[in-house]
């Protein structure tokens, strides 16, 4: 059973360390739209998906890689939790 808060912490840490900090952004709120300010670019999206699949042992199909599913830390957490329940 995956714990929601722990999932979110891991996602947040990855997004901040892997993407935001290298772009000079030190803080990202859970609701912030990650694509809007170029925090994540087109190649970054696929690195993020690979991270989620590996870390949470879920499978995310290309058709699920959408703005709605990945737009914020909150949205990513929701996606991971819904996948893990299946």
């Amino acid at each position, binding site marked *: 059973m995956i714990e929601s808060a722990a999932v979110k912490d891991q996602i947040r840490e990855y997004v901040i360390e892997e993407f935001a*900090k*290298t*772009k*000079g*952004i030190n803080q990202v709120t859970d609701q912030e*739209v990650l*694509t*809007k*300010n*170029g925090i*994540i*670019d*087109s*190649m970054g*999206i*696929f*690195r993020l998906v690979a991270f989620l699949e590996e870390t949470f042992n879920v499978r995310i199909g*290309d*058709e699920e*890689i*959408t*703005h709605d599913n*990945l*737009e914020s830390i909150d949205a990513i957490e929701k996606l991971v939790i819904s996948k893990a329940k299946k």
Partner: protein
Amino acid sequence: MAYVLQQLLSKSAKAYPEKIAVWARGRSVTYRELDERSNQMAHLLRKQGITKGDRVGLFFPKCVESVVSMLGVLKAGGVYVPLDPQAPADRVGYIIGNCGIRVLITNHEKREVLTPETLELLESCISTDQAENGKDGKLIPWSMLAEFPADHAPEVSLIETDLAYILYTSGSTGRPKGVMLSHQNALTFVEWCAEEFQVRSEDRLSNHAPLHFDLSVFDVYNTLEAGATVYLITEELALFPTSLANFIETQGITIWYSVPSALMLLLLHAHLTPEKLKSVRTILFAGEVFPMKYLRQLAEMAPAAELYNLYGPTETNVCTYYKVERERLASLEKLPIGIACANTDAFAVTDDGRRAAQGETGELCVRGPAVTYGYWADPEKTQKMCVPNRFEQNFEEKMYRTGDLVTMAEDGNFYFLGRRDSMIKSRGYRIELGEIESALLSHPGVREAAVLAVPDEIVGNRIRAVVAIHVPDSLKPIDLQQHCSTRVPKYMIPEVIELCVELPKTSTGKIDRVKLAAKDPAKEPVSVR
């Protein structure tokens, strides 16, 4: 015949007043609305003191208002300067100061990004936000447009050689340089495209490139020329291949133009089928080399589409093109950049100053009405790149040295071989490695810096830096990435930074780039930090 860009709009506004001209983020404007709004924008700009030749900056994410603003500036007689909405404040501030922008069209959020020093340079800001911005008196709300005449533009006498826009690209000395482009420069390209691609009023063009990128000149102005519709693809949509493929299908895009890496993302991650691309009749790409492997896949996914490789730096816009010959796809090892466009002369010049013969390597030089006057406020760089055409004995004429090494093969096409200097392309963006080195060196803890390109099949090049620091362990790579983020756009921040005490040198004391490149920890995928 049109001799200034805004005449393309006037013509189509008469012919197709109720047709949709621009669509973005679920909103659209008809030709009549675009004509009226841009007339109003021109009057508003006049009231803000903008007259012939004055520069006006555009600093906000792509939307319908982007095109209204571009045309509004032109109708006021001004010169628009599209600024990368994701660029750091320092870079935007530099450009605003460099070309003397006094009026900026922006939005509330982007204006907040600007430094106090930059705001000081601006006399006024026009906001694209629909709502009043209340407390902030210096920001003119979009709703103000309604107070100006819609049925005519202000009087202005322009000729084709007047400037229309300035596009800033990466500069090797650490600061971006502004490429000045006239109405004639743009129209030479637009007229060639109209003829070659037969753009018609039924066409639906995509606009994938950012507006500060010259690919967008085709998307916007060939749409207006033909009375067609352009669909602006936002930065957010461009990131998600599956959504983007659905967008192409549902909007029925007929002409697509982008960098190859955008098409490769679609091929790799969007589960493309010929069904998805069935509306697309023409696919254009430019900005970087399209690997044959992926071009073959694209040709299969769009079996009926015409495919074109377009080539040219911002200074000339597209100057050569190659129409993909499907029967040669299987055997062709490298994609040609093709032959010169109409009304453009392109030829290779050897190191010893001769016109290169077939099979010989030379620097591609371009002459004709599409070629820039040079760089804003930089006569030195202009003289270096826009040189007298020595091959013309009877009158004075300039030609542009592209810095690209090419050869003409037996098939009569030019082939791109490499660069003379350290400019590289990544995701189609033009990047001067020297600009990144300057950014690194501006950090007080850095002693030496070398920035190298690591070739990558999908994005063209990734950026790696090797940095010598004054005090060992005083800095981490992340500190330098953060420092760079304040000076250069995100796509120019090195993905990998290796720290050392001293960079290897050649016998003449120069940084040994060959050794550094060989030491590349890998040629390994760059996700490893």
